[in-house]
């Protein structure tokens, strides 16, 4: 694939993927595991989770979320994976943090044998956090 075509695919993938991901996160969390590879890794605010089943379990346990994405960027990797970086705000429905918080999330998507793209790496961080730890 030419460099230009690669970049275009990358952008398209990023646009589609991030909408799909946050839609599932906010509205149908029980299906979010499907987006991950079996051996994917998730780092959620410093909590390391490995494997699709564990990741799915971890995400189900989070409170109901409401996400607004304000920035999306993507780059192709050398092995034709795609790196997507989003930033925005998320509100989790829980009494100890019921307000919009800034976050940044990095995904690395890899192509599977069936030509679909799945998440191999997911790193989520709340940024601009005032509380320590």
């Amino acid at each position, binding site marked *: 694939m030419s460099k230009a075509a690669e970049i275009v695919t990358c952008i398209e993938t990023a646009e589609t993927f991030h909408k799909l991901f946050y839609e599932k996160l906010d509205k149908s969390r029980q299906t979010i595991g499907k987006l991950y590879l079996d051996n994917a890794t998730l780092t959620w605010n410093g909590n390391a989770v490995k494997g699709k089943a564990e990741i799915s379990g971890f995400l189900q346990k989070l409170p109901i979320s409401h996400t607004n994405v304000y920035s999306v960027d993507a780059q192709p990797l050398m092995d034709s994976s795609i790196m997507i970086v989003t930033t925005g705000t998320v509100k989790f429905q829980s009494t100890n943090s019921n307000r919009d918080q800034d976050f940044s999330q990095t995904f690395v998507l890899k192509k599977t044998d069936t030509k679909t793209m799945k998440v191999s790496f997911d790193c989520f961080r709340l940024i601009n956090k005032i*509380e320590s730890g």
Partner: protein
Amino acid sequence: VSTQSTGGNMDRDGDTDMGGGGPSGYQSRPRYNPGYHRRPGGNKGKFGNNSAWWKIVVHEAQKFDQTHFFRMLDQTTNENIDPKNIKLEKNKLVFWVKNHRAKDAIMKQSGKLTLKDHTINLFARPSPGPESELSGDQLKAKICSVLEGRYSVVDKKLDLSEFNRDKDLVGIRAQLFVISNVIGELITEKCADSLEEIDFSRNMLKHTGCIRSILSAAKNITRVSLEYNMMNSESDLKALSEHCPNLTHLSLKENPAKKLMEEAKYIAGIRRLFPKLIHLDDLPLPEKITFEDEEDEVKLPATKQSTILLEPLPRQALERFFLKYIEIHDGGKGNRADLVHAYHEKCLFSIACSWRTRSGNEGKPKFPIKMPLELSKKNRNFRHITKAELRESRLIVGRDKVVSEVNEMGDTKHISHSLCIDTSTLEDNFVTAVLTGVVDCQTEYRSFSRTFILCPVPETSSYLITNDQLSVIRTDNDLVKKIESVPGSSSAAPSTSGAATPGYTPEQEALIGRVGVATKMTREACIQLLTAAQGDYNQAIAKFAEMKNAGQIPANFFLSA
């Protein structure tokens, strides 16, 4: 209310206009008016006493001259008026006269006297006596003593029923709507937390605005009686519910509002406004039906510091790599050429920003309202940038271009205590590292998240960046304050879980020293070399010679001469 004539118009205090109309526009009314009760005999008035005093009220006192007015009154009435306690109540002139002859004579003039084109209308009502003119403090002291008599500590109740008719308040203008501020102050001073019940009955209250100050002062109020008042609008009840959301007992008996609403609607409406109410008017409310639909408390997992999911050696290598990277980056605009050793030949770089408003920060120094120009020129955020050419052109390709771009960016100072790094391995030992934190860019603070994809270089046990994505958002004011209050925050080491820098044993230090002498490289470079050689000195030196001959050792590895 006086019986001298029927009809007439009643003003706010219950005074009636004896004249029954005049050129200023009052309509004449039919003689029979069932709204006003007739009381037989004498001047008993509301007070049931036979005081001969009358209070005369003249509206719009600002429109005429007082002395002039009284002179005219004397002339036209031919009576010895002898007005007492003349004073102004807001824009009304009031005074008292002692006998009904004087009063009659005065009232005959209502609608007939004109001063400066303004027709004077007079109102009269029976009064127990001239109201004393009390100073603010005197009034407060007086009311305080009355309230003390009406407060029950045991019941936590304040009885304000028929307040202005209290025997100790004769001669003082003390209707609740007039002095509610004073009562509010007294409650705040003396019993703000302990007062739980107030009886407001029989105070001619037309709306809750009058008693707002009292209600807001009693923070723990749970029982209110508004019986026998003149509340007539639902919106008033809403105001009440805002002031007293925790009411458990409420009585609105004998208020027109209740009559306006049908029974069932009334209860439902009241319930909506006062969710904790269990007693309304005379009766306990039926219990509210609830479903157990309250969600269990779901907490967020605790935030943890940096996660570095790597074996110890690569981990150390990575830490060193970033220390160096940040050090060079913070060297300032134009001084970052050395970063060429950090990037892979075929690397990619892009920046994405979002600069959303945040209350409390805008416009302050270092917290600009608009996205800084250098960022907006390079911004590749797909949400903002929709043109395909820009999306393509703003992805910087190739080491030379990338380093040049990074070098062009303004000065930065990474605030070490804000930094956090998350890393993990991808396939082929590639590593992702996400660095987050706050950077001080002289003209503004920025919060950032920077994702690096790194490819390992076994020979130097270091890395090369293949992908660099920088996302910038506006910083939070409070966060910066907190960060900067930590001492020593100017050095640029990212905080990691566990010990900061790996310590070396004296033997290891000695080894590093020897390698340093032999190779003339920086300490860090020596450590890298030794690590690659698994701690073996000879192997390290051999490796060094090999790499030096092949020209593989980066210039910055060497100590400056």
